[in-house]
């Protein structure tokens, strides 16, 4: 108590009394808090502030909640009104009473910046509601009657809240939280990973929910833009702005491609996509008109100036080529405040340059300063009468600009930045050549590239597919990794022996095949205009004519080609259950499938349709294995047969991912009809999925996706109990084969019936 050396005004002293607090550390900062609070709050507000603070102080959770409340609450109240003060107290009390007291401090700490993002009391109420929802859904309970374990992710969520709300709308914020709760409510460590934004899907969902224009969504459009307007093309590499607040990366290009931010929000009425276009247009202009300069002897100031003048030069040239760009550039170019030129305590170099830059590009922007104006005129003189100037010319003007306008204050560490940063311009690193290696080169992305090379050397990269979550009714982004490899080979003659064994069946099939084979030419009769006279009809018409009745004028006939144009993809389930012995047979299901597929392949080959075969199984979502057995361009020969002979069965059945992967091969085939035949012995399942409906619904979603791509999927199911689920997945497009031993006979027949 001896620390209270400072004399308090009676007013503050009265508040201190009202607070009734004995914490020494609170005592120490109390005066400062009061100074701030009295400027932000009304008299009534102050009373409510102290009253609620008193309650928090007496809650028995130590001094920290009180300290943070005293510091943060006035600012929150100043944004959304003083009624919020008691609401904050209520929420703190709520957290304190249901074991989540550890979340109180992060809640209060971030509340002010959260409020700044949300702006209105309604939004803030919604925020409280979301947090309460999170608390009820993630606090653990023992034997179901008391919440005894605190929510593991809540403190972390609260710490992340300001950043999340900067990137997400309230709706997106809610979705992001919901996702985390849904998937990790019974897994505390993962939950923490998610809410600290450590896990991959946390970031993936964040990307999906965030507002603004994502680069990946518009990559093609931007590539087209570069090609069509600038006859230029390069890799567009995104970098993220979300993770480095202090050192904000700028767009740039180098030998490895063009680096752009991963997302652009709309700015000054310019859409995100147009900001990308402006940025790319500016860089394309650099690539077309700029040349490198040796800059070892230039000071940083000189370099900044050269960069600005060179930027203006290429912008001017770009505008000359596409006059419409001026509007976009100007919308993104800040309007610097010339009034501030009188400031003496700051380095104003950037302001002077921004003024000149604006004046060069904007004919309606006038600067009063004579010296600056003379440089604008000098620049226009360089570009007069359609001249292009050169990087060197721009540099000369810039160097003279620095010499002429230099001021003592330029060296001040206090730099004037307001309205000087031009949004669409890159960092101009491509302009400089250093003869001696400097220490300020940017190595931001180099480590990333090294990492990538390591991975490439040992296996093919996976393809990622979404998976449908029926409960949340949305896709889990990039949830499943599919690894593709060529199926190992075995003894091809084994398949030939199988075919021989079924030679009687083959003969019967052959008869049906003959009937199915495309009849190349079909005669179309009764044509008014055809290629040939159809004599029968012509004579009949003539008789009609002679007998005085109305003749049929359609006396010609023509021919048309009628062919089959079908591409078939056979997808085989190669999961563990195929090793079981088939009911009423001495063979395993795998062996029977092998026979059936061999016969089917023989049939399709005979029909001359394009077809491919692949097998799949899965060992959790991280390892879905897709084995290539026959491609569309391969012929039904030894290679394919030997792969078929080596078929083995293991792991589980994640069918949706395999179908999505197979569909992208089928999709690229040119055929009138595309058919995907799925041969399976059970329902989709995997060991990392506890809800057996989930993969069924996902597969059904995959079937829908295939339908949209014009692919007809058809399931041949060997599970006698399949009726329970197969209808849900495939609708009417399935066959259940009860007598598995008849599969080799049935499969080709089903195929032929399907394609008749």
């Amino acid at each position, binding site marked *: 108590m001896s620390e209270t050396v400072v004399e308090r005004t009676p007013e503050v002293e009265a508040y201190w009394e009202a607070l009734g607090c004995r914490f020494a550390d609170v005592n120490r900062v109390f005066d400062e808090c009061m100074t701030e609070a009295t400027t932000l709050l009304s008299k009534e507000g102050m009373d409510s502030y102290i009253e609620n603070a008193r309650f928090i102080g007496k809650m028995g959770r130590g001094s920290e909640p009180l300290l943070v409340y005293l510091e943060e609450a006035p600012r929150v109240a100043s944004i959304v009104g003083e009624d919020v003060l008691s609401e904050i107290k209520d929420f703190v009390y709520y957290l304190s009473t249901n074991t989540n007291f550890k979340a109180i401090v992060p809640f209060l700490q971030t509340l002010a910046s959260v409020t700044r993002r949300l702006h209105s009391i309604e939004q803030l109420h919604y925020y409280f509601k979301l947090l309460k929802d999170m608390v009820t859904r993630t606090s653990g309970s023992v034997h179901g009657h008391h919440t005894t374990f605190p929510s593991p992710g809540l403190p972390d969520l609260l710490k992340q809240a300001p950043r999340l709300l900067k990137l997400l709308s309230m709706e997106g914020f809610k979705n992001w939280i919901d996702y985390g709760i849904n998937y990790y409510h019974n897994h505390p460590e993962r939950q923490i990973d998610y809410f600290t934004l450590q896990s991959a899907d946390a970031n993936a969902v964040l990307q999906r929910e965030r507002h603004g224009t994502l680069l990946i969504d518009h990559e093609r459009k931007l590539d*087209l833009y570069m*090609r069509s*307007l600038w006859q230029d093309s390069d890799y567009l590499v995104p970098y993220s702005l979300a993770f480095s607040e202090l050192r904000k990366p700028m767009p740039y290009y180098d030998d490895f491609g063009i680096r752009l931010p991963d997302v652009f929000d709309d700015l000054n009425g310019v859409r995100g996509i147009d900001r990308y276009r402006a940025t790319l247009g500016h860089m394309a202009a650099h690539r077309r008109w700029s040349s490198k300069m040796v800059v070892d002897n230039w000071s940083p100031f000189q370099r900044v100036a050269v960069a600005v003048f060179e930027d203006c030069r290429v912008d001017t040239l770009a505008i000359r080529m596409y006059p419409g760009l001026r*509007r976009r550039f100007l919308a993104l170019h800040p309007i610097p405040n010339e009034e501030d030129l009188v400031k003496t305590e700051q380095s104003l170099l950037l302001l002077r340059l921004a003024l000149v830059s604006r004046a060069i590009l904007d004919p309606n922007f006038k600067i009063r300063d004579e010296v600056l104006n003379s440089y604008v005129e000098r620049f226009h003189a360089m570009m007069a009468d359609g001249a292009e100037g050169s990087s060197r010319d721009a540099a000369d003007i810039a160097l003279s600009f620095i010499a002429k306008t230099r001021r003592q204050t330029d060296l001040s560490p206090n730099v004037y930045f307001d309205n000087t940063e031009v949004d669409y311009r890159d960092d101009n690193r491509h302009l400089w050549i250093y003869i001696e290696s400097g220490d300020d080169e940017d190595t931001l992305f180099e480590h990333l590239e090294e990492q990538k090379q390591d991975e490439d050397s040992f296996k093919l990269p996976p393809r990622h597919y979404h998976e449908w979550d029926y409960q949340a009714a949305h896709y889990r982004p990039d949830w499943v990794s599919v690894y593709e490899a060529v199926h190992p080979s075995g003894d091809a003659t084994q398949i030939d022996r199988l075919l021989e064994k079924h030679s009687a069946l083959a003969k019967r099939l052959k008869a049906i095949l003959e009937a199915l084979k495309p009849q190349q030419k079909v005669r179309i009769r009764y044509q008014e205009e055809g290629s040939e006279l159809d004599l029968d009809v012509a004579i009949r018409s*003539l008789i009609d004519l002679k007998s005085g009745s109305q*003749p049929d004028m359609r006396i010609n006939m023509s021919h048309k080609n009628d062919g089959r144009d079908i591409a078939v993809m056979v997808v085989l389930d190669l999961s563990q259950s195929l090793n079981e012995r088939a009911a009423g047979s001495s063979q395993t299901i795998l062996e029977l499938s092998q026979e059936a597929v061999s016969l089917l392949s023989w049939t399709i080959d005979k029909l001359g349709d394009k077809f491919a075969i692949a097998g799949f199984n899965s060992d959790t979502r991280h390892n879905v294995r897709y084995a290539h057995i026959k491609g569309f361009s391969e012929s039904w020969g030894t290679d394919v047969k030997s792969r078929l002979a080596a078929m083995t069965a293991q792991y589980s059945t994640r069918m949706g991912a395999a179908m999505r992967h197979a569909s992208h091969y089928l999709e690229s085939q040119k055929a009138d009809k595309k058919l995907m035949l799925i041969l399976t012995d059970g329902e989709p399942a995997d060991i990392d999925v506890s809800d057996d409906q989930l993969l069924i619904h996902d597969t059904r979603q995959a079937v829908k996706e295939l339908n949209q791509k014009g692919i007809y999927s058809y399931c041949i199911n060997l599970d006698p109990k399949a009726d329970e689920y197969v209808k849900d997945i495939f609708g009417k497009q399935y066959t259940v084969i009860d007598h598995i031993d008849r599969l080799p006979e049935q499969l080709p027949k089903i195929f032929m019936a399907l394609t008749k």
Partner: protein
Amino acid sequence: MSDAAQYNIKAEPFYQAQGDEVELYEAAYAARLPVMVKGPTGCGKSRFVEYMAWKLGKPLITVACNEDMTASDLVGRYLLDANGTRWLDGPLTTAARIGAICYLDEIVEARQDTTVVIHPLTDHRRTLPLDKKGELIEAHPDFQLVISYNPGYQSLMKDLKQSTKQRFAGFEFDYPSEATETSIVAKETGIDIELAAKLVKIGGTARNLKGHGLDEGISTRLLTYAATLIKGGVEPKAACRMALVRPITDDADIRDTLDHAISATFA
């Protein structure tokens, strides 16, 4: 026999030569060599043939080929008549009889078995056998066969047989240079040169996208459409979107890019 005069070109069509193609064509006609004109759509192939027919003062019979076209559509067929059947000459037969220039437009669209009927007309024989009628037509001395096709459009299925190709002298057309195209658009439609130059520039941006989602760039023909619309009082950007972008693509990305090119070109 049909009236030959109806096939004459009455007024001089506007055609701006890109090189010496007019002289070369005249030489080929003097020798009555069959001629093939290649080039992307809307670059002036048909206009060139029309212009040459006018310049040489010969009638011109144009046949637009399509894949349902049969040999009888070219040669002729029997029609029903009060007295039985009556033979009607097809356009090719008519041209051979009256000594016209017969122009088969987009010949690759026709099926290959159709195109072979032109073979005897295109070598030293210069005859056309009408097997159904039992007649052998000697081609009129003024008769000439011209075909056009668009190599950019070629697919595996649509190509001429070597035996057909090697019967023709060829002209390769492409979109004219920027300056030429500007003056073509300006003269054809009467808009001012500056506006024409802008249209041509937009055309150029689309041609850069050929092979990246566009099968063909914006043709000179479409540029003149846009110019005509502008001349008729349509706001230039709207005219360009309507005449240049919407017809050539259904791809949203490309449409967006080209729309942007239009708004970047018209300040």
